[in-house]
């Protein structure tokens, strides 16, 4: 047997492919072969390691050294120095290691810095290899659930863990499953919402690209617990790599008998179909998503009936977000009590955030519920870029609120932020420095909603158009203070009268920007 001396992990995800990761991978394999090291050095593909703006990223194990911004030109030096002679190339190393990159090994104890439940395997395993997923505890929770637990025991465990929907609505997942399990119907569906359209959010994409098997496993468990035998994953049409990897993972799981009939000899049958979207933000709303799967325009439906009783093709349907589902295996495997060790009293577990905008190191992190905005921006995000000062952060995507300096030390979780008229939403944190023009940002947010309003209900269709007119006038310094009042009035009306959360949520960015920056906005009008 060959002794493998080093493993070189190369991150292949949407961001690194842009930076040329495939070319670096080819060069690396060729150069290792040229130096005659192919027997002792293994190059492995993995998903995102959480670094999003540093070009192609390599991690060399067992040392756990991160190399960033690698191009094929640097490969010969890297192979000769580090892999052949064992000398670290300091010039190419990640200089300062911000907290969130310290995830190298669980046993170092440094994992405490970033408890990883959802992203546990992202950036460590090859997402295209089912064997690696299995070696990293993949499908163990499903085996445990299907062979030794009754559906109601699973539901009780999930309920007890206090897991809530991570798509933004924060509905208790266990309760949703319980309702679904009690509906008497031989045909039920479980749908995973991977229509990640909230601007600034790409966590689901990186979960799908980094550890697709975890999602499959979670859906098997969810199906078994609720009595659904057919699963659908609805993915945005733009996410080509996610679709490709999940489809491969599903095919592999089928060939291993992990999907199909009589899974783990339990008598339970389950299979998953991937559905590809075609560019519509509103399809992130669960009933619109269901309409879209059925092959119609993605208009939201009347509620009630809720999907739990009458969803896809009129059958009971459970809709869960990618991140929500990805928590399930850990809860089943290690128990609800262990899960509750993380997070706050009202919101247990972790949250995956995307940090972006004017921060030193944008990226993807997972931290406990209750982490403050200050920690996220300054510890994990490396602080404000170019030594500037913090102005505000748009938290929760376009349908979120602007949070100013006074909110930096508030413990962020779904329940707590609601008290401050804000929302954790999808977990996108868009940081803005002191030079940011808030009117311009609000304009961008409102234009986004105008484009994405589906036109189904009048308040949203007309409201978004009027809001854009007002903000365009204000931005062009042609508005009046009445126009500023109009922003609040219209978005309040939309909150009360819009048909679905899309129109109802514009009040968040509008009222929060006025709360913090009314003077700045008024200074732009006559």
């Amino acid at each position, binding site marked *: 047997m060959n002794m493998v001396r080093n493993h070189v992990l190369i991150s292949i995800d949407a961001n690194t492919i*842009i930076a040329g990761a495939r070319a670096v991978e080819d060069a690396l394999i060729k150069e290792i072969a040229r130096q005659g090291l192919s027997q002792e050095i293994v190059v492995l593909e993995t998903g995102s390691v959480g670094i999003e703006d540093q070009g192609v990223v390599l991690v060399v194990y067992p040392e756990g050294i991160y190399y960033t911004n690698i191009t094929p030109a640097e490969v010969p030096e890297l192979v000769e120095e580090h892999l052949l002679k064992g000398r670290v190339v300091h010039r190419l190393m990640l200089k300062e290691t911000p907290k969130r990159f310290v995830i190298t090994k669980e046993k170092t104890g440094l994992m405490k810095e970033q408890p990883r439940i959802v992203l546990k395997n992202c950036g460590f395993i090859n997402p295209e290899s089912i064997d690696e997923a299995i070696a990293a505890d993949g499908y163990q929770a499903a085996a445990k659930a299907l062979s030794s637990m009754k559906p109601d025991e699973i539901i009780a465990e999930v309920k007890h863990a206090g897991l809530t929907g991570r798509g933004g609505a924060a509905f208790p997942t266990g309760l949703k499953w319980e309702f679904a399990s009690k509906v008497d119907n031989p045909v039920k569906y479980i749908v995973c919402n991977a229509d990640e359209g909230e601007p600034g959010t790409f966590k689901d994409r990186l979960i799908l690209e980094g550890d697709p098997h975890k999602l499959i496993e979670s859906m098997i468990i969810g199906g078994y617990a609720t009595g659904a035998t057919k699963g659908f994953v609805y993915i945005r049409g733009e996410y080509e790599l996610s679709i490709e990897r999940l489809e491969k993972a599903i095919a592999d799981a089928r060939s291993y008998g992990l999907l199909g009939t009589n899974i783990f000899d339990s008598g339970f049958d389950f299979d998953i179909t991937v559905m590809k979207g075609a*560019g519509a933000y509103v399809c992130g709303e669960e009933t619109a998503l269901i309409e879209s799967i059925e092959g119609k325009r993605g208009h939201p439906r009347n509620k009630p009936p809720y999907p739990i009783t009458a969803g896809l093709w009129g059958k009971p349907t459970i809709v869960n977000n990618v991140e929500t589902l990805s928590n399930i295996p850990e809860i089943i495997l290690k128990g609800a009590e262990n899960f509750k060790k993380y997070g706050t009293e009202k919101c247990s577990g972790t949250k995956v955030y995307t940090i972006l*905008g*004017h921060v030193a190191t944008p990226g993807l992190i997972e931290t406990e519920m209750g982490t403050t905005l200050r920690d996220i921006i300054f510890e994990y995000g490396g602080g404000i870029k170019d030594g500037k000062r913090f102005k505000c952060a748009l938290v929760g995507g376009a349908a979120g609120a602007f949070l100013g300096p006074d909110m930096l030390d508030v413990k962020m979780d779904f329940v707590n932020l609601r008290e401050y008229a804000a929302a954790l939403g999808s977990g996108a944190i868009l940081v803005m420095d002191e030079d940011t023009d808030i009117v311009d940002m609000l304009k*961008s947010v409102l234009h986004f909603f105008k484009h994405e309003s589906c036109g189904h209900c009048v308040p949203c269709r007309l409201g978004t158009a009027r809001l854009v007119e007002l903000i365009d006038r204000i931005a062009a310094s042609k508005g009046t203070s009445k126009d500023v009042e109009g922003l609040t009035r219209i978005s309040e009306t939309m909150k009360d009268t819009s048909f679905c959360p899309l129109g109802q949520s514009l009040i968040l960015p509008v009222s929060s920007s006025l709360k913090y920056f009314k003077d700045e906005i008024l200074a732009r009008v006559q």
Partner: protein
Amino acid sequence: MYKETILKKFEPRLDNILYILHELQDNNEQHYVSKEDLKLCADYLSVPYSFVHGVATFYTMFSLTPRGRNIIRLCDSPPCHLMGSGSLLDYLKNKLKIDVGETTKDGVFTLELTSCLGVCGVAPALMMNNATIGKLTPEKVDAILEERRKSL
């Protein structure tokens, strides 16, 4: 005839409509879903033409008008906007002498806007056909356009 081969890849069920429209568009030389395509799809799925038209116009990834050989889709969501996609849009418009949704006279480029591409770590970003490119600057945009022109 090849269009029927595309249709036959899918069962004639309504939930395959987005896949069918994607395939028809991807296999159209002018990167759009033509009236003829809509008609074929409607007949295949046994639904009215107006229904398929309604679906195709609802989703932004489908175009019902012919497009250029290369489609530029610049992300204009708030994160890219914050990192300067607004001025890049002006730059592209000036450079190509077209507005959003238009095609250059020589038919080489179509300029479109897109919602968040989910690569906000490297904002501002655009998609050139199927490739996503980030950390854009005017110089980088020039290089991308030049590369596409050369590959004609």
